[in-house]
Each structure stands twice: as structure tokens, then as C-alpha cells.
């Protein structure tokens, strides 16, 4: 602080050189450079949150505060080599994303520059000031225009469409805020994103040229008619999530966990198998190789619903930990804005943010460079309001075009030291309704997914109960709570076993330990790399629960009638139950009935 003050005091000096440069253009000039934060003088005309071009290399930046005629700018590229006195040019536009077909299947950096064109222009390393065009002007889309001359249109209405990928029809909408009558339409045909598709005469007499390419500022949520009540689960094929802690379409969830507990693995599993129409995967300040892995795997994996490659429904945003920190801050907003755009077409979107802690740390880093007064652990005081704004962009809505769409947000949290009491985890907890706590001890014993059944919760249970009853089985929720009850009892018994050993427990409690173990290994643990177990449909999840409880209840009867549990264990039934996740394919429900018969037969030998 002392030094910063001293720097500010030394403002007066020889300004001749800078004055000379200022005369060359009307732009503001850089007067301070401190990492990703740059200050520019002569910026009285700048607006808050507008995009500016910094320096002769035209690095992209955003105005984050204004004081007198000095603007503070966060720069989305590396500032090494920038001189004091270089110009800063205003663009007049807030930081925006470009919305056009071609987003799906693509991979962008934090401010929506396509990484493939960056590679084309600057090679394998990302250099400063590199150009990257999106959308590409030479790509043409076959557009079917649905609006006719004379139609009254308003913001959000679908007026044309094009097949973006075999899975997704891209609906071209009138931008929010535009209202008028279609005066002229082009015929169906191949157009680039920059071509005019139709003209709309506005109430004020002007004409609006509607193109596929539209823009939207990332920090402003796209409008919708109304938020709707949540009714359906997002089915993920992961047993511990679908059965124990389900998330709804339009809901919010957090996955906190220390390093090595499997946050990214869980996020990848959800991105692969959840039944959303479109996945937006934001790799925010994480490892480069993880994004490479997604790029390598997703085109090869097929969507269980449609049988098409997963990449055809996936949007990737990669701002890895070595990429500039300010763009990391923006990447989350870029992701959610793209999600909202597709939501407005009537799709269900799942947005994975991995990891929101890196985003919060980017906030902290920028805030520290601005010398703002820190709150907890150096994080800025506005951390919690930023988090709530972000998670509030999730939800199920009636769109302006009168269809329904939803955004589900699943944020990974990387608590420092794996300690859930740190500010990001605590603040996130307030704004999400599903909490999948990853446990280090489980991860150490390679129990994956390491979502701990006792520390996790879902507030959507009641809302979704009806759905499960109508669509899977009316016993679903009852079975779930029976399993959870056994796990709870097991946990208490394990505490006792830790003190006195398991041998002296009565047989009915030993049974709880056996069943608990069967649930943990046979149900909760799920093999992400196993071809059968990586995705399990709800029906099989239900049957697995049923057969576990069937065995439990049968054995309970026997134990009550005095048959020692050690003899029952010798039958190997519990081991068999643990293995059904691998041995029973997902499309073999009849084998569960056979298994029940085997259980009956084997147990009857003891009576």
C-alpha cells in the first residue's frame, strides 16, 4: 500500500513524449501498468464495462472503474512489453459475445475467440494481440426462413432456422428489444453469418437488417418472459446423483472438493452423460491437458439418447490456468451468455463451470491490484453478490419466443486446503440448491465418485418426487430413503467398530454393516471407465436398489430367526450384489428377477 501511494504521488513529470503521442490520436493514453490492470488517462468519454483496445498491439480490455479522467482497465491478454504512453481506443461497446451458428462443437477462450483460429494465426503458443475471427465469413449455412413479409415480430421470436449440427437446429431469433413488421425476406439458401436475411421495419420508421450474427453483452442476462417452476430432473446416469442427490433441469449445484478428489472427473461424466440438449463446458483456470482430453474424447463418445458424437452438442470454453487471469474472470460470463442464447431457442442447457474458485481468485487478483479493501481471505467484498448473480442466471424459463428452455449450472469449487469453511465454498453454498461434497478419504481409497452421502444434499427432492413416481416407480423415493437410512446407521456402527472391533456386534447390526458395504461398493461407487457402469439408466438404478433391499430384508428375517450371519455371508450373496453393476448390462432387467430367485434358493438352504 505504501508503495502504491508513492507511485500515485509522483504523477507530475515530463509529459512531453506522451503529449506528442496523444496528439496523434484522440485516444486515451496508458499511465500505469500493473500486471493485468492498466490505467489510462484522458478517458473521460469511456463508459463502464466497455471494451477498449489497449496499446499498439490492440490488446482487448474492459473498463472496470472510472475516476476523473482516468479509466482502470482489465486486460484480457498478457501486458508484458506494454509502454506507458501507448494509446487506448474506445469501442463504445460492452464486452460482448458474438452469437451465430458455429458455436456448437467449437472451443473458445474466455472472451469467445476461437482457439483453432488462434492456432492458425499464432501457432501452438498463444501470442499477444493475435487476431481470431468468429464467425468465419467464408462459412455458409443453409437457412430456412420461416417469417413472411407482413409478419409482426418482436424480440425473441424465431424467424429462421439452420441445422447447426445433426443434433441441434439453430433458431435465428429477433434480438431482444427489436419490434416491428417484416418488410422483406430473402429466399431460403446458403448464407454467411454476416448476410442480411430479412428487413424489419421498426415503429420509428427505420429498417432493421436481421442477420444471423448478433451480439449480446456478457454481463447482462438475456431477458425471458418469466421463470417457471422446476419439474424435471437432469438425468445424469450417475447413481449417487440421480438416486441420492438429484438435480433438476434449471437447477444449480456445486461440487466442492480438494485436489485429487475427482471434481473434474465428475464434471466430465456429467458433460458426457446428462440428458441436456446442449452442454456448455467452461474450463476456467484449470489444466490445459484436461481440455485436450475433452477435445480428444468427446468426438469419439456417443450421446446415449441420439447415438451421435457428443461434440455435436458441446460448447467448450477454455481459459486454462496459464492464460491471462482477466479472461478467466470473463469466461464464466461468456459461458452463461452462450447458454442463455441457446436456452432462448427452447433448449435445455447444462453449464459446467470448472472451477468457480479460479474465477473467484481471478476476482481477488484484480481486486488486489486495484487496492480495494479486502474482505475474508483477501477476497473482495462483492464476491458473494457476484456468485449469486451468476447462479441466478440458471433456471427454467418461458422464453420471449414463447417456448420453454432451461439452464442448469453445475459449478466445481476448489476449496483451499480442502477446507469447506473457506469463503468461496461458503458463499456458493448459499446460492446453490444441490451440494455434492467430495470427500478426501473416499478419494484416497479410490471410491469414485467420491461424493459423500452424509455431507451432500439436494433441495430438489420434494419437487422431483412426483416425477420419479410417475416416470420410474412409485417406490423410488421410499427405496432411496431406506438405503440412506442403512448408510446412516452403518456410519454410526463404524464409529463403534473403530473403538471395539466388529466381532462383538449383534448379528442384526452386522447385517447393517454388510448391507452398508454392499450399497457403498455396489451402488454408490461407479466405474467411470467401465463400459457398462459409466452410464446407468434410472430403471437399472431402481432395480439395483430393489434387489439390495430385497436381500437385506430376507437376511434380516433369517437373522431374526437365529441363523448366524456368518453362515449367510458364506453364500457370497453380498459379493454377488456388489458385482451386478458390472455383470448385468443396462438392458437386462429380467436378470434382476433371476437374481431374486437365486437369493431365495440359496437362503433356503440355510433353513
Amino acid at each position, binding site marked *: 500500500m*505504501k508503495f502504491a501511494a508513492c507511485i500515485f504521488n509522483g504523477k507530475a513529470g515530463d509529459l512531453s513524449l506522451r503529449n506528442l503521442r496523444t496528439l496523434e490520436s484522440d485516444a486515451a493514453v496508458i*499511465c*500505469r501498468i500493473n500486471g493485468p490492470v492498466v490505467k489510462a488517462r484522458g478517458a473521460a468519454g469511456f463508459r463502464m464495462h466497455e471494451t477498449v483496445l489497449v496499446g499498439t498491439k490492440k490488446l482487448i480490455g474492459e473498463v472496470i472503474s472510472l475516476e476523473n479522467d482516468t479509466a482502470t482497465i482489465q486486460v484480457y491478454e498478457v501486458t508484458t512489453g506494454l509502454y506507458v504512453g501507448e494509446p487506448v481506443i474506445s469501442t463504445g461497446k460492452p464486452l460482448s459475445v458474438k452469437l451465430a451458428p458455429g458455436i456448437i462443437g467449437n472451443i473458445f477462450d474466455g472472451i469467445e475467440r476461437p*482457439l483453432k483460429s488462434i492456432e492458425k494465426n499464432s501457432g*501452438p503458443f498463444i501470442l499477444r494481440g493475435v487476431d481470431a475471427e468468429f464467425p468465419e465469413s467464408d462459412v455458409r449455412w443453409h437457412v430456412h426462413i420461416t417469417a413472411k413479409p407482413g409478419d409482426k415480430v418482436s424480440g425473441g421470436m424465431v424467424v429462421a432456422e439452420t441445422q447447426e449440427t445433426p443434433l441441434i437446429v439453430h433458431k435465428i431469433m429477433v434480438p431482444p428489444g427489436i419490434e416491428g413488421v417484416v418488410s422483406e425476406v430473402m429466399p431460403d439458401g446458403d448464407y454467411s453469418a454476416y448476410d442480411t436475411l430479412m428487413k424489419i421495419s421498426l415503429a420509428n420508421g427505420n429498417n432493421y437488417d436481421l442477420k444471423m450474427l448478433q451480439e449480446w453483452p456478457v454481463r447482462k442476462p438475456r431477458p425471458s418472459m418469466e421463470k417457471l417452476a422446476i419439474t424435471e430432473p437432469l438425468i445424469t446416469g450417475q447413481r449417487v446423483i440421480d438416486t441420492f442427490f438429484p438435480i433438476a433441469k434449471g437447477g444449480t449445484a456445486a461440487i466442492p472438493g480438494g485436489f485429487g478428489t475427482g471434481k473434474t472427473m465428475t464434471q466430465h461424466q456429467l458433460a458426457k452423460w446428462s440428458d441436456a440438449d446442449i452442454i456448455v463446458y467452461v474450463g476456467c483456470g484449470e489444466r*490445459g491437458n484436461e481440455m485436450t482430453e475433452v477435445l480428444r474424447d468427446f468426438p469419439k463418445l456417443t450421446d446415449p439418447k441420439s447415438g451421435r458424437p457428443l461434440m455435436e452438442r458441446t460448447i467448450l470454453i477454455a481459459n486454462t490456468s496459464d492464460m491471462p487471469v482477466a479472461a478467466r474472470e470473463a469466461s464464466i460470463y461468456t459461458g452463461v451468455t452462450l447458454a442463455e442464447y441457446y436456452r432462448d431457442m427452447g433448449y435445455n442447457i447444462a453449464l459446467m463451470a470448472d472451477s468457480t474458485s479460479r474465477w473467484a481468485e481471478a476476482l481477488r487478483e484484480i481486486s488486489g491490484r486495484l487496492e480495494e479493501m479486502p474482505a475474508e481471505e483477501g477476497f473482495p467484498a462483492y464476491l458473494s453478490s457476484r456468485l449469486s448473480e451468476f447462479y441466478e442466471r440458471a433456471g427454467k424459463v418461458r422464453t420471449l419466443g414463447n417456448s420453454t428452455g432451461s439452464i442448469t449450472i453445475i459449478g466445481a469449487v476448489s476449496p483451499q486446503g480442502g477446507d469447506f469453511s473457506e469463503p468461496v465454498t461458503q458463499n456458493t453454498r448459499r446460492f446453490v440448491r444441490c451440494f455434492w461434497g467430495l470427500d478426501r478419504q473416499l478419494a484416497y481409497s479410490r471410491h469414485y465418485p467420491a461424493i459423500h452421502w452424509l455431507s451432500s444434499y439436494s433441495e430438489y427432492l420434494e419437487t422431483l418426487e412426483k416425477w420419479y413416481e410417475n416416470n420410474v416407480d412409485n417406490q423410488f423415493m421410499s427405496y432411496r430413503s431406506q438405503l440412506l437410512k442403512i448408510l446412516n446407521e452403518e456410519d454410526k456402527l463404524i464409529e463403534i467398530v473403530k473403538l471395539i472391533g466388529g466381532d462383538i456386534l449383534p448379528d442384526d447390526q452386522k447385517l447393517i454393516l454388510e448391507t452398508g458395504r454392499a450399497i457403498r461398493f455396489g451402488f454408490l461407487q461407479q466405474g467411470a471407465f467401465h463400459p457398462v457402469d459409466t452410464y446407468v439408466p434410472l430403471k437399472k438404478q431402481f432395480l439395483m436398489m430393489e434387489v439390495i433391499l430385497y436381500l437385506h430384508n430376507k437376511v434380516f428375517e433369517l437373522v431374526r430367526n437365529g441363523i448366524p450371519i456368518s453362515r449367510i455371508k458364506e453364500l457370497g450373496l453380498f459379493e454377488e450384489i456388489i458385482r451386478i453393476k458390472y455383470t448385468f448390462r443396462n438392458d437386462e432387467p429380467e436378470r434382476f428377477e433371476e437374481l431374486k430367485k437365486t437369493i431365495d434358493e440359496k437362503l433356503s438352504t440355510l433353513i
Partner: protein
Amino acid sequence: MSIEYLDLKNISGPLLVVKGVSEASFEELVEITVDEQGTRLGRIMDISDDVAVIQVFEGTSDISLKNARVRPLGRPLELPLSSEILGRVFDGLGRPIDGLGSVFPEMKRDVNGNPINPVSRKYPKDYIETGISAIDVLTTLIRGQKLPIFSGSGLPHNELAVQIVRQAKLPRQEDSEFAIVFAAMGVKHDVAEYFRESFRQSGVLQKVVMFLNLANDPPVERIVTPRCALTAAEYLAFELGMHILVILTDMSAYCEALREISSSKGEIPSRKGFPGYMYSDLASIYERAGMIEGRTGSITQIPILTMPNDDITHPIPDLTGYITEGQIVLDRDLHQRGVYPPISVLPSLSRLMKDSIGEKYTREDHASCASQLFASYAKVHEVRALASVIGEDELSEIDKLYMEFGRAFENEFLSQGKNEDRPLEYTLDLGWKLLGILPREELDRVDDKILDKYFKPRGGVHV
């Protein structure tokens, strides 16, 4: 070019504040002449109007507000590079200190490097056989991976690193060349000497590039040392197509230097006084490992860090673990019981092994064997906790078997000689042999098919 500035305003810790600077850029290299004799290097880390804050690599002692001249050099800190750097020794700023004169450069590179485009990365999947059982089977090292060793003071991390260097080989023989880049940050002279001597003994000294910032060298220099090393590594890997193993020791000293500079700048600290940007800063080092599509070379990083007070939740190991692709954790308790290498298996992890082991790469049972060893050894810990309360005699029969398995695992599987080079097949068979102590029903992580083929119960002592 050679404008010099004399108007020093302030000196504090490693930082120098100069006024009247008109032609200098952010992170530009400056030369400071003190007392008209001897120059030092520094870097501009904050510049506003005409006031520049300079971080002096060699420290600020003897500099007064009157006796120094500051000259911006018009470029960031660059490292001269050519294939001649192999076998050479440099200081922490990349200047030769082996008396063999300066390097005739084919090119110069900014030591800060540039981020690798995730699209251009090649996903690493060639496994490196180290001949160390605990690493090969349980935390497999992959070419292009960054796999740190989390250690504590007094633990044999240097020996382990040397053993990895000596024994590392690819199962598939290729013609491509390998080399080692070694960066020492704040380590003792004898530690650096130990590494040098070990490289010499294994006959690879001509393939080693060393960057030494020793314990008595200025701490600020340490900020640059790993970056110099990685710039050299990138050149060798991606320009010359070599496979590079980078050893960075000790990252804790690096982080402490970062903290020192941050606090003299008066920045707002986050946990334990470390700066809020330490994650990004460490990432800019660790992420410079990997492979690039279309280039032959690779950079594999083994950073070594000593956990203060053996605490894995301390910010240094914590932030490192969030960036690196796994970690090898050393354990004091095992060390004291004479187990070498004292690798604490449960918290150790290799994130890249999942795609690089198994039928096509190592052996079909690798994943199952590893997963079962992890699970059974985790259970050993539970049983031991119980035994410490009720005594081993009171344990159930199964639990006694677990105790036995635990001992055998530590003494036969983990323990090995400092020069012992075990083939992977041998280690896998050893794993199955030890799992044979347990009854088959206890092996719940393994498919029946694999069990039928590999599981061999120990001579009929089933309970």
C-alpha cells in the same frame, strides 16, 4: 537506447523506485550500475506515468539513492539458446557460471514464455517406466506429465528424483533423444552437487542443463530460475525434438521468494501471507509441461517441494496439487520405519495414468491391480486404527490378514533398493502375490475375469 535514469526515490527490500522514466515497458529488463562499477539486472514490475518499480534480481544492498544509474534494455529477460546449452551450468538468471564462456545463440527467447493453446496440445499417454514399484503401478508417470514430489525436510526426495532420472525409460524404444533440465532454487550447495555427481555417475552429464540458484544466492533471482529452465526445455523439446525431463527443486523456496517480493510491494496477502496471484504464477510454470501436436519433443516436469511442517494443506502443496497432474507424497512415518522410497500411497495420484495403462500400453490387469491395492491398503489403515485401540490379538481373522497384507505391502512392495530397477511385470506379479494374502471375496475392485486369471490365493490358508 541508452537513456539512463538517476532519480531514485525509494529502496525497499528487493524493490527500487525510479522517477522520470519515459521509455520503458512493463516487465522490461533494466541494468543498474552501482558506484560506476559492477552492474545488476532488474525487471520493471509496475510502471505508472514516469515512476517505475524495479525488482532487482541481485538484491539492493549497497545501492543508495545517489550511487546508482538505471538503464532500460528495451527487451524482457531473454535466454540465449542453442544446442550448445547441453552439458552447461548457468546461474539463476541464465548466465553461464561454468567458466566455459557465453553461449553463441541461435535464438533468444523471452523467459516468460507463452501459454500453450489447449487446441495444440497433444494428450500425453506414453508411460515412462521408472523401475520403482510404487510409481510404476500406483502413480504411473507419463511422458509430458507434471508430477510433483511432495516431501518434507529430511526426507529422501532428492534420492528418489535421482533414481527416477537414472532408471526412467520408455518401454517402446525410440530413436528420439532425451535430456534433463535441472533447476535449483534456494537449495544447498551440496544438494546441487549431489545431483551433479549422480548425473555424472549415470553418464548423462553431457545431456544435462543446470540452472543453479543456491541458498546463498539472492532470493529474487529465484523468480526467474524456473522460467529460464523451462525456456531452455521448450527450446530443446519443441525446436530440437528432444524428450526433456525437468526437475525443479525446491518450489517451496520459489514460493517464499514470491511472498517476499509481494510483501515488500505492500500487496494484500491471501493465505499465510502468500500473494493472491500465486495460483496463476505457479500455473505459468507448471503448465509449461506437455506435448504439442505435430512436434516430436515433450516436457515432463518433476517439481519437488518441501511441505512446511509436512502439512499437505499448506498453500504451496495445495495450489500445486490443483495445477499438477497428480502428486507423489512422501511420508515421514514410513521413512522412520526404514521404508525407501517412503511413498505415502493413498494421497499419491497420477491423473494421466487412466488413459495410458492397460492392455495396449502396460498389461490388462494394471488398472485392476492398482485399484485393488489402493482399496485394500486403505482398509489396512482402518484396521490399524482399530488395532491401536483394542490390540492386534483381538482383531477378527480377516482383519489380521489385513494387518499382514499391510506389513507385506510396505516391506516388499513399497520398499526397494536405491539402485533396484524393477520391471513392471515383476511389480504387477508382486502386487497379485501380496493380494493373495487376502481372501478372494475381499477383492471387490476387480472383475471376475481378471481375478480368475491373476488371483492366486496363498497356499490354501483361507478362512
